[in-house]
Each structure stands twice: as C-alpha cells, then as structure tokens.
C-alpha cells in the first residue's frame, strides 16, 4: 500500500515536472479592404447585320470577413465566423503565413486560392540594426516596400510601408528575441479569370509576441 502510494506520488510528480512545449513567435491581425470591379458585356444585334456591345462594370467589396466566410462555407472553420480573425503568424525570424485564428482553437491556414500574404520583392530601408558582440540584433527599421500577392488567385502588386522592430517573447522565465512587423500596402491586381480589377488596402497591425503552441500544436510551424 505504501509502495503503491509512493509510486503514485512519484508518477504524479514526474507528470507535473514536465513543461509544455513552447514555440515563440508573433501574431498580427490582417485587415483586407478591397473592391473587385468585373466587366460584363451584352451584345445586341442591330439592323443591317450590325452589332452593339454594351459594357457594364459591377463592383463588390472584399474584406477579411469574406475570406473567413469562404473558409467557413468550405467547412474549414467551426461553423461560425464569430470570434475568428484573419491573422499572420510568424516564427522568431518573422517567417510566417496567413491563418484564421480563434482563442482556444487550432489555427487554420488560409487557402492560397483565396489570399496569399505579400512577398516583398524590393525595399528601401531607413533606421538601424545593431549587432552586439554577443546576443541578438536590435532592429528598428522603416521600409518602403514593393510586394506581390494573390487575391482570389489573381496576381496583385502592393506598394507601401513596413516597420520592423526587435522585441521579445517571455514564456516562463525565458525571453526569446523576436522580430515584430507591421505593414500597410495599397494593392492593385487582377482576377484569375475574366476581366476584373482588384484595388484596395492590405494592412497588418503591429505584431505581438506570442507562444504559438496553442494555435499551432505539435511540430506545425508557421
């Protein structure tokens, strides 16, 4: 009996001594606000064999909410978009991707056929990067940036600004350096099919340090 109690105590103590896996990273809210103008044409036969084509343009709005709604309709979310946010999750080096996130739920990657994140093709920076003899860099940069992305499968160009600032994720007693980013772009592009023009803005809030494990359990990396 005493041996059984001791074994149970040792087992419980061993279980409590294990710490959950931590995955330092960052999270930022993505705000997409765009219009999609699509051309339609009606051909009318006129007398004498002539034809008249009448062109009209219909415009709709596209928001982060619509991306989440498409994911919900495709059964990728939990059946309701309430509480879900379009976010960018990244590791400590700011390598990341777009996800639908909700507290208490595993993050769901945004399908590339809906939206991809801007990929910077060229930039011009202002600021400082201090590299100490030992330890992490201290980054404080503002960038004018040109980037490319896809919206509804169509190629788009983005022009705007990035801000990169060094920060830290404190999990327990350990602080891990991370790179915090915010972006603001004007975008212009086309749809994958048909004659459409997409225009609007793509912005991310200043990213915050976070432990990514609850959102990306296991070995999943952003």
């Amino acid at each position, binding site marked *: 009996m005493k041996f059984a109690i001791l074994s149970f105590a040792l087992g419980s103590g061993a279980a409590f001594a294990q710490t959950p896996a931590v995955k330092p990273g960052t999270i930022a*809210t993505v*705000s997409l*606000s765009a*219009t*999609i103008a699509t051309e339609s044409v009606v051909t009318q036969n006129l007398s004498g064999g002539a034809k008249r084509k009448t062109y009209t343009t*219909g*415009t*709709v*709005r*596209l*928001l*982060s*909410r*619509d991306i989440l*709604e*498409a*994911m919900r*309709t*495709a*059964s*990728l979310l939990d059946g309701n*978009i*309430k*509480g*879900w*946010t379009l976010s960018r999750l990244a590791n400590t080096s700011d390598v990341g991707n777009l996800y639908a996130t909700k507290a208490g739920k595993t993050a769901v990657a945004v*399908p590339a*056929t*809906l939206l991809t994140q801007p990929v910077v093709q060229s930039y011009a920076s202002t600021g400082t990067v201090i590299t100490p003899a030992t330890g992490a860099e201290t980054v404080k940069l503002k960038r004018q940036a040109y980037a490319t992305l896809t919206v*509804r499968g169509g190629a788009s160009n983005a022009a705007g600004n990035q801000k990169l600032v060094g920060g830290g994720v404190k999990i327990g007693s350990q602080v891990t350096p991370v790179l915090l980013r915010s972006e603001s772009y004007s975008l212009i592009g086309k*749809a994958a099919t048909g004659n459409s023009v997409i225009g609007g803005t793509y912005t991310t809030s200043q990213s915050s340090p976070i432990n990514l494990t609850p959102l990306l359990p296991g070995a999943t990396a952003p």
Partner: protein
Amino acid sequence: MIATLPRMKAHLFSAAGVLLIALALMPWSKSRQGPPEPSDPARPAPSKSSGPARRETPSLPSAQEAMAPLEPTELAGILQRIEDAVTSYDPAGVKVLKDLLLDSHVEVRTAAREAMVQLGETDGIPVLRQAATRMQDPAEARACREAADFLELPSWSDTQDAREATAELRGENEPPPP
C-alpha cells in the same frame, strides 16, 4: 406780488414732491424694466441666457482643444473593445463602434472607423454618414463618407465567384475516392 408767494410755494412743494416720488420710484422701475427694444440703437442686443454661451449639439474638440493623450493601458482596452466588436460579425458591433466614432482622441476615432469597415455590417452606413456631419476635420469627414460608400457595395460573399471558390475548397478537402 405778495399774494402770489403762497401760490408759488405750493407749486414748489408740489414739484419737489413729484421729484422725490420720481426719485424713489426709479430703482424699482429699473428692476422691472424688460430687455430693450431691438430697434434701440443705444443698447446692444441682449443674450438669450444670462449664463455662459452653451452649444446646442456637442461637437468634437478642435485640434487646439485636443484631450490629453490616452494612457497605453487605456488605449489597449479601447482597442480590445473595438476588436471584440469586429469579431462579433454582428449588427450589435455597430452600436459599440458608434460611440467611439466620435471619441475625443483621433486614434480611437480612426480605429473605430476602420473597424466599422472591417465589421462589414450595412447598419454602419447611416452611422458613418451621421458621424461625417459632426467631424471638424474635413479629412476625417471624407473618410467616414468613403467608408459608408464602401459598405454600400455588395459583398463578395454573395457573388457567384464566392460560391465557386468555396466549391473548389470543398473539392480539395474531400477525401479521394477509394
């Protein structure tokens, strides 16, 4: 001559009496005196109230009258309320953002306006247009009107393209046939 003296004295006493009575009545009559006639050039037009001038409708402070900047924790709390309103994706979120559209701090007004767009509820259209009429900064008023114009557009989620997009996704997510 001698016979007129008593008559003169009587007249003098009468005149003095009238003068005294007039002097006595003067303060009382002044207190009962109403506002001067508008056509009276000698006096300026009276104010409607005796107290300091009051505005009928509250308006946002001008740049010179700007409130003290928000404490970081207070701003963070307001931004969290804004984010919660957006992620409700419900018309009730419009009510939360409505009051913040006219906050005395420009960063709160800006965040609330952008949140109203991201919320995507058409109930926000009249709210934004009304807020535009009460903005002192023409740029903010224009931004509110443009946000209202944007929300008036049909949503992409209601289009055939959206239905095709979700059908593609469902096809990708379905397991392959055995």
